[in-house]
């Protein structure tokens, strides 16, 4: 009974994965690209893991899928945040249609957000 629900969730995850990959190609800026393609982790691959858990139940494969989903939810937003902050410190230019840059304004006013910056 629970098997079609698992397949549907796996298909939703695959759809989010391919949409995130298309967004990675189509968006104009590294920040927009990162914002689009982080969806492909927390909804795409995590959806695949939840679907596999619903398919297999409390078998070894299902438990491993659940553990892998927990690791994905823990590690991938942290990695995306670190990559975004690294891009800001590296000086990657924003898109010319950007309307607001609070981080750059604070750095221009002399108020450094990060204290341990070398």
């Amino acid at each position: 009974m629970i098997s079609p629900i698992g397949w549907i969730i796996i298909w939703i995850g695959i759809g989010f994965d391919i949409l995130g990959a298309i967004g990675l190609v189509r968006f104009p800026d590294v920040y927009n690209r990162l914002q689009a393609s982080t969806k492909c982790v927390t909804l795409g691959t995590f959806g695949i893991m939840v679907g596999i858990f619903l398919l297999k139940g409390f078998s070894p494969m299902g438990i491993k899928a659940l553990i892998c989903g927990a690791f994905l939810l823990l590690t991938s937003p942290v990695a995306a945040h670190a990559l975004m902050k690294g891009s800001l410190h590296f000086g990657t230019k924003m898109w010319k249609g950007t309307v607001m840059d609070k981080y750059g304004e604070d750095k221009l006013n002399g108020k450094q957000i990060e204290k341990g910056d070398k």
Partner: protein
Amino acid sequence: MSIMIVILGIGGFLCLLRIYQGPSISDRAVGVDIMGILFVGITALSAVFYDLSFLMDLSITLTLFSFIGTLALAKYLQKRSLDD
């Protein structure tokens, strides 16, 4: 079943395109990160397809290695040393 892996492979090819023509180093780092996550999905789906349980172990390991690699790339972009 194999159409799922083909679709995820197309997504990996799009990430490879972004790595090839990325204007800056940050774009290439983002492409590497997302391609690792897509490979995690491919490995998990093939674990279901072939009914082999150890491929899910490989999926967990790929997740953690992708995380460590992305953190190393972020440290490199911030112009810091790796043990800071």
